[in-house]
């Protein structure tokens, strides 16, 4: 049996009296995509923050490929191959789109050697941003800012890619592009953790689904089984069982 690339064990985090993670454990293998769902405030983004190192957990551990990341900061984790996108985009507003991506390629991406400019350009091409390379990133529309989030993360050449709601707001024509991109990355051997509210896009790609509610894992496993389990239906979908994608498809 192969050792999973990412092992998260017993993670706990609270902000005052609000618990955003309680004994959360999960694993993701290389070449596997894990979907992360749950109602607003369930602690999905906090969990991503803890894996990426932008937030410290109160307890628990994060291990990447056998190496304990728990005490490392975000930059050190990025250097080891952890990349993420932010739900609310954080472009370097004073830099162009190309320069934004070049930051990822020439810092965390530098461990790969080779030409950083080529890697930056490649990341722009696969995310469809190449035509906007010289645009000041501060003047991008929201959707292109989200693309830029993904492009910057890709430019680092990640082993583990953490995506936070990159499909919301996309049109039905654009969704397959994003789904295709995630599938391609996964098939290239990247481990993907993807938070997404656009369920049918998520279910098109992910191998497993994890549902969080109030900081706790309430279901984990085969996506279609998770989405149909009574606990998930109750806390996450409420009474809208009829609209479960995959049911109607």
């Amino acid at each position, binding site marked *: 049996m192969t050792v999973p690339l990412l092992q998260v064990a017993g993670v706990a985090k609270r902000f005052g009296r609000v618990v955003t993670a309680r004994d959360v454990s999960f694993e993701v293998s290389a070449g596997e995509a894990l979907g992360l769902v749950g109602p607003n405030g369930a602690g999905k983004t906090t969990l991503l923050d803890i894996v*990426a*190192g*932008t937030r410290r957990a109160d307890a628990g551990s994060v291990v990447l490929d056998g190496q304990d990341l728990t005490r490392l*900061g*975000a*930059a050190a984790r*990025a*250097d080891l191959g952890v*990349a*993420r996108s*932010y739900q609310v985009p*954080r*472009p*370097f*507003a*004073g*830099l*162009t789109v*190309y*320069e*934004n991506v*070049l*930051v*990822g390629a*020439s*810092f*965390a*991406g*530098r461990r790969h050697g080779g030409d950083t*400019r*080529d890697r930056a*350009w490649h990341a722009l*091409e696969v995310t*469809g*941003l*190449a*035509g*906007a*390379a*010289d645009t000041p990133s501060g003047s*991008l*529309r929201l*959707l*292109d800012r989200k*693309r830029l989030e993904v492009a*910057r*993360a890709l*430019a*680092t050449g990640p082993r583990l890619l953490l995506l936070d709601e990159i499909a919301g707001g996309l049109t039905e024509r*654009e969704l397959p*592009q994003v789904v295709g991109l995630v599938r391609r990355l996964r098939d290239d051997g990247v481990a993907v953790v993807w938070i997404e509210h656009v369920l049918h896009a998520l279910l098109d790609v992910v191998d497993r689904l994890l549902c969080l509610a109030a900081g706790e894992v309430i279901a984990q496993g085969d996506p279609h089984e998770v989405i149909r389990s009574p606990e998930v239906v109750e806390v996450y979908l409420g009474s809208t069982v009829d609209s479960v994608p995959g049911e109607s498809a």
Partner: protein
Amino acid sequence: MSVPTVPPTGAPTITRGGRGSLIGAGGLALVVVLLAAVVPYVVTLGALSSLVMLFALVILGTTWNLLAGYGGIVSVGQQAYVGVGGYALIQLADAVGAPPWAAVLAAGVIGAAVALPTSYLVFRLAGGYLAIGTWVVAEVFRLVTMQIDGLGGGSGLSLTAFRGTDRVDRVAFVYWFALALMVAVVLGTYLLMRSRVGLGLTAIRDDRVAAGSLGVAVDRGRRLVYVAGSAGAALAGALIALSTLGVTPGSIYSVSWTAAMIFIVVVGGIGTIEGPLVGAVVYWALQQALAPLGTWYLVVLGVVAVAVVLLAPRGLWGLVAGRFQLFPTTYRVRSGRI
């Protein structure tokens, strides 16, 4: 979708600056040559001394811009290092007996050495608190200096190393040395900002969290900027002491140095290499022209600052920066299809 998805044919060419930049750089090099080879022989000694002040202002503006414009560290306490540089110069030149040029360079190193531990204190603060905190640090430096008898207490120190040196030789030496130092600081800052480190610093300025997620060592980058910027302020302080032949705690640790730096950077254009050059010339020219007006000079400076901020929020250089860069730090992509 606002972005064309058709991939450009052919690999892109990345350019950094064009013919305009080369011509501009040539023009600037010519100015430096004129300043070095012609100006000293046609103007008065007093004018040379006042040009030394201009060069010191360029260094101050350039290094404050490094802090605020590239590192995102808005310090109001850089006079701490102007003072350290000034005192270090006089102690090294007089008490230790180092040659003045070596004493100035060593003063810069001392400024860096003091800034490194101070950064651990200052970086515990953020935003407006950091600004005030740095000012407090500068006041502490001034008060401590005044308590040390060997540093002349409240009346300061005079530079005696030049006693017996001909006045013309002294002013000429200080002038050329200050010019060389200014060129080195501006070029060094430009090369730093053009490098990979500079790209990382700009990322830190725009979004610290995102920069960290892409592998930029945020704390180390900010510390580098603070130490380098403070070393620059110490160099300028040493030059000022060298040119004015003395320091007093009240003047060399004066917050008006930092006020001048902020004026220079904001009026010239923050976040550009060229901005502080423009701003320093404006500040220095106003200082020269308005000296007879006394206090009114400050009023005029204030009016100019307000006018520039309102009419050209990105500074005077910001008016042309979109079309032309003397010191190109940016990347432009020219893909095969253009």
